[in-house]
C-alpha cells in the first residue's frame, strides 16, 4: 500500500503527466521518415523473403503453394545441391583469398607510408583511392587488361591466354581484382591503426635496446591486432557479397568456377524466376553473415578490455 503510494507520487510520473500530447509524440515525428524508409524497404522485404522461401512461386514472384522447407532441402540435399555446394565452395575460397590478400595489401601499404618521406602523401592518397572507384568501371578496365589478343597482361607475358574463360586462371583473376578494389578500405583502417600505437612505447623500447623486429613483434602487433581483427570481419562480409565483378567479367563461368552464392541467387531469381528458391538461399546467406557479425560484436567487447 505504502509502496503504491510512493510510486504514484514519484516525480518522474508527475513530470510525464505535465507533457503535452505533442511533446510526447515529437521524438517519433523526428524518426518518422527514417522508420518509414526502413519499414517499407528493409523490415517488410526481409520478412517477405523469409515468407517466400517457404513457397513455390510463379514467374512474377507470387507465392503459389506452401511447401515448407522444400526449397531449402532442394538445394541442401536435393536436385540443386550440386550447384549449391559448388557455389558455397567457390564462395568460401573466394572469401578466404580476398580477405587474406586485402589484409596483406593493407598491412604492406600501411607500413610503407608509416614514416615520412618525399611523396608519402601522394602514395597514401593513391593507396586509399580504390574506395572511390566503381567496381563496374574497374571491371571494364580489367576486361581490357585481360583481353586475349590485345590485353596488357598477354602483351607483357608474350602469351595469348584467355584469362576470363580458362578454368585454370579465371578464379584467380577475379580474386586479384577483388583484392585490388579492397586495398583502399584496408589501407585506410589499418594505417589508422598503426598511427594509434602510442609513440612513447617505441621510445621506451629503444631505451631498453629493442631492435626493429622486437618493436614490431611486441609493440606494434599487439596494439593493432584489434584493428586487424575488425578489418578481417569487414573484408569477409564484403567478399561474401561481391557481385558486380562476377556479373561483368565471368557470369559465373567457366564451368561454374566463379559462380559465387550471391551470383547464383541472382541467376535463380532474375534469370530463372525461381523467386522462392532464391529467397531460401538469401536466408542461408543472411544467417552466415549474421553469425560473422555477432562474432565481431563479441570480439569487440573483448578488445575494449584489451587496450
Amino acid at each position, binding site marked *: 500500500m505504502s509502496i503504491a503510494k510512493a510510486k504514484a507520487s514519484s516525480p518522474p510520473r508527475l513530470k510525464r503527466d505535465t507533457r503535452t500530447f505533442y511533446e510526447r509524440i515529437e521524438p517519433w515525428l523526428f524518426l518518422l521518415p527514417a522508420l518509414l524508409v526502413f519499414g517499407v524497404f528493409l523490415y517488410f522485404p526481409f520478412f517477405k523473403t523469409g515468407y517466400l522461401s517457404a513457397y513455390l512461386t510463379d514467374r512474377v514472384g507470387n507465392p503459389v503453394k506452401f511447401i515448407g522447407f522444400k526449397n531449402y532441402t532442394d538445394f541442401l540435399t536435393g536436385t540443386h545441391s550440386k550447384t549449391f555446394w559448388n557455389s558455397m565452395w567457390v564462395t568460401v575460397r573466394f572469401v578466404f583469398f580476398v580477405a587474406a590478400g586485402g589484409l596483406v595489401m593493407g598491412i604492406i601499404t600501411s607500413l610503407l607510408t608509416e614514416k615520412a618521406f618525399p611523396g608519402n602523401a601522394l602514395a597514401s592518397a593513391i593507396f586509399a583511392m580504390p574506395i572511390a*572507384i566503381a567496381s563496374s568501371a574497374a571491371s571494364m578496365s580489367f576486361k581490357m587488361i585481360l583481353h586475349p589478343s590485345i590485353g596488357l597482361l598477354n602483351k607483357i607475358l608474350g602469351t595469348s591466354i584467355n584469362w576470363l574463360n580458362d578454368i585454370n586462371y579465371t578464379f584467380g583473376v577475379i580474386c586479384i581484382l577483388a583484392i585490388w578494389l579492397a586495398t583502399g578500405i584496408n589501407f585506410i583502417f589499418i594505417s589508422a591503426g598503426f598511427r594509434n600505437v602510442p609513440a612513447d612505447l617505441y621510445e621506451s623500447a629503444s631505451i631498453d635496446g629493442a631492435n626493429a623486429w622486437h618493436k614490431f613483434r611486441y609493440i606494434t602487433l599487439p596494439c593493432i591486432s584489434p584493428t586487424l581483427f575488425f578489418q578481417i570481419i569487414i573484408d569477409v562480409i564484403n567478399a561474401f557479397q561481391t557481385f558486380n565483378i562476377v556479373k561483368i567479367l565471368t557470369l559465373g563461368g567457366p564451368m561454374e568456377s566463379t559462380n559465387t552464392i550471391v551470383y547464383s541467387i541472382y541467376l535463380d531469381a532474375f534469370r530463372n524466376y525461381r523467386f522462392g528458391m532464391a529467397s531460401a538461399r538469401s536466408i542461408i546467406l543472411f544467417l552466415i553473415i549474421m553469425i560473422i557479425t555477432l562474432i565481431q560484436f563479441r570480439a569487440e567487447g573483448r578488445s575494449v578490455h584489451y587496450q
Partner: protein
Amino acid sequence: MTQVTRARSGLTNKQRHILWTGIRMLLTLPFVALIMIPLLYTFMMSVLPADELYTRFWPSHFDFSSYMLVFTKTMIPRQILNSFIVASSVTILQMITCSMAAFSFSFLHFKGRNFVFMCILATMMVPWEATIISNYLTVSAWKWLNTYHVLILPYACSAMGIFLMRQHYLTFAKELHEAARLDGCSNWRFLATIVVPLSRPALGALGAYIFLQQWNNYLWPLLVTNSDSVRTVQIGVASMYDVDSEQINLMMSAVIVCLVPSLSIFIFMQKNLINGLMAGAVKG
C-alpha cells in the same frame, strides 16, 4: 647499442636515415604502380589512335576524338545526368532523414529509445540479397520500374548515416539544448539553426560517402531500369562491351568519363571522407 651498429656499418645516423628513406621509396614504387597501372592503361587505351591499338602501349599522339564520340554518339551524357540526379537526391534525402533520426536518438527522451535504436543498428547485419528480391517484386507490383523514385526512395535513409550523425551529436553539450529550450526555441528550429550548422564536417563526410556509394551503385539500377532515359552511368559503361566490342577507344573513354566525378570527390574530400569512415567504423 646504436654505437655498436654505427661502428659496424660505418654510417652516421644521418646517412642511415637517408638510406632507409631511399629503400622505403623504392619499395613503395611497385605498390603505387599496382594501383595506378590499370587506371593509366585505361587512359592510354582511350587516347591511342585506332591503328596503334594492336601494336603500341604509348600512343604516337594523343587522340581525344573518342571522348567527343562519347559525348555526342552514346547515351553516356544522359546517363551521367541520371546518375547525378539520383546520387544527389539520395545524398540530400539521407542528410535530412539521418540528421532528424539522430537528433531524436541523442537529444530527445522517449520510451523505447534504445530498443528502436538497436532495431535500426541491427539492419546493418542484413545483406542486400536478403531484401533485394522482395523489394524488386514490390516495386514492380507498384509499377515503379523505370522511374527516378525507384532508384532514390529505397536509399532515402541508412543505418550507417544515423549512427554516424548520432556519434557526432553525442559530443554536443546538453546545456546547449536546455538553454535553447528555455529561450523558447522549438526542437525543429534548434536542429535546423544550431545543430546542423555546427555539424557541417560530419555532414560533409556523410554526404561524400553517400554520393560515392550511389554513383557507384550497380545492381539495383540494373534490376529496376531498362530504358536509357533513367539508366545510370555504371550500367551504361558496363553494357558498352557487348554493344561496341570493336570500339575499344570509345569504351575506355567512357570508363574514364564515369570515373572523373567520383575521383574528383575523393580528391577534394579525401581527409574529411576518411575521418568520417573511421567514425562510422567504430561499430561497423
